[in-house]
């Protein structure tokens, strides 16, 4: 027995070694390095100096940091519910027996599969003031007499980003919801039909409560992902106009680009802390709601 346990340990080390080597070298070490850097004045061509929490204190007094926090939080508050709603609609639709289901399933996966940087370029053209698709549709359909200045106004840019993000990520939410829907036993719906519950009653009383655990998962994934949004904004608005759409990731990137590594690191740590707090809040919410994993 002892020999076999020893062999098990050796096998485990061999099998798990590469995993922890990679995670250690390219994730944990960088994270520790970033946390350490956030405690230094670390600017290119200037002597490094240990300043403890000075970078953080300066962030707290920095308007552009708070604007960035407000934008990032507001971005997830608007985009995540929209994505969940569209994703749920698509999932309910995909769960129907119908001809050509494989075609719809593939069509819905396409926005998810295209690189965000590339679809952001397409959205940039769609929102073009002079000849973009968005303004063409708005003017032709009579919703507005004059074209909308999407990317040139802060509200327009915000709406543009939320719409483009919803397009990109609703498919992922739909896939998660679809799995949840398929796990609901048919007998429950059958029983509901026998009890003469209407389609909407069945949705409210059977489908929706059983989807709640999946909903929490989708919410968590989308929130964490939305908080760190980078590529879509980098390409579509570049953080503009006038810095109104600078997400926290973009703000951190700008500091790094300017050679101010200490400040950039402090922004990264702040972003991580915000994600952690929200994740814990969701986990608690899920437990209070009586959901167990």
């Amino acid at each position, binding site marked *: 027995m002892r020999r076999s346990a020893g062999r098990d340990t050796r096998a485990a080390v061999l099998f798990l070694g590469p995993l922890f080597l990679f995670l250690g070298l390219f994730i944990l070490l960088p994270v520790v390095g970033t946390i350490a850097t956030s405690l230094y004045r670390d600017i290119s061509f200037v002597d490094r100096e240990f300043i403890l929490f000075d970078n953080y204190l300066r962030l707290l007094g920095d308007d552009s940091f708070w604007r960035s926090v407000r934008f990032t939080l507001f971005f997830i508050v608007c985009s995540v519910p929209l994505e969940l709603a569209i994703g749920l609609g698509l999932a309910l639709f995909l769960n129907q027996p119908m001809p050509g289901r494989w075609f719809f399933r593939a069509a819905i996966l396409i926005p998810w599969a295209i690189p965000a940087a590339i679809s952001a370029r397409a959205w940039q053209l769609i929102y073009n003031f002079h000849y973009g698709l968005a303004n063409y549709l708005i003017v032709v359909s009579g919703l507005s007499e004059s074209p909308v200045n999407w990317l040139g106004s802060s509200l327009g840019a915000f709406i543009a980003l939320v719409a483009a993000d919803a397009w990109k990520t609703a498919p992922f939410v739909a896939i998660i919801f679809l799995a949840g829907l398929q796990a609901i036993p048919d007998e429950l719906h059958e029983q509901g039909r026998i009890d003469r519950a209407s389609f909407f009653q069945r949705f409210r009383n059977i489908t929706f409560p059983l989807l709640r655990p999946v909903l929490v998962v989708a919410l968590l994934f989308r929130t964490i992902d939305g908080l760190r949004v*980078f590529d879509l904004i980098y390409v579509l608005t570049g953080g503009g106009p006038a810095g109104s759409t600078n997400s926290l990731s973009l703000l951190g*990137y700008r500091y790094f680009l300017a050679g101010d590594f200490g400040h950039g690191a402090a922004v990264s740590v702040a972003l991580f802390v915000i994600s952690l707090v929200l994740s814990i809040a969701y986990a608690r919410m899920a437990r209070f709601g009586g959901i167990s994993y």
Partner: protein
Amino acid sequence: MSEEKIKAALVFLTAVFAIVFCLGPFIYMTVVSLSSEPDFLSGQGSFAASLDNYRIILTVESLHFLDFLRNSMVISLVTAFVTVFIAGLAAYAVTRIPLRGKSIILIVVVAISMFPQISLVSYLFRLMTSLGWLNTYQGLILPYIAWALPLSVWILASYFSQIPVDLDNAARVDGCTRWQALHKIILPVAAPGLFSTLILVFIFCFNEFLFALMLTSDHQARTIPVGIALFQGMHGEIPWGTIMAASIVTTMPIVIITIIFQRRIITGLTHGAIKG
């Protein structure tokens, strides 16, 4: 009866919405890429079909479109294979080898995936600079592997845990080592799961942006999302037609993979997100 009709109408409306919503931007990209001028929707312009944009990206070497595309393909493919190999070993250990604190391993792996990419880039940039690996394939592949591992381990552990342990116990009684049990017994049974993970990691790396933006500087290693994002015209005006042509050529392989392997992708994503 009427309830059935309402439902049928709802399904039809959602079908129309799904097609317009999901494919609309993609179709618009295609149309612009085939037009000689991008302004055909304004009052002045008109649509004239032309393949010029495709000719430009495929033949004008200074654009480096094909270089970017090759970089992306090589980097994503190598990453996907190495990641699945390492994640497969780890997932086998987590699901098969009796260990103390096994559940902690999976929790640690998930916790690690919580760190935002932005908190890694500055350190990786300095690391790759000191190794002289900035703007090289390995400078991007190594961080990609680490970045793709948590999800892959999670997906594969979920797949492996569905394979009966008796299978490899029997093999072990017959004198197989752990390694033999893994590649003779588990591997064939788990092949669909490994393949799903391979496709997912490929797509994730193909789409990755921030690492590629920070760690590459020109066509030697720059990947296609960054290439297209930074694509500038020679005369100040944004060359929409060429950008859209490049986007279509780039996304075509991804779209085809998605259509062919949709089931594999969906089960992979589901295992990663829920079953775990």
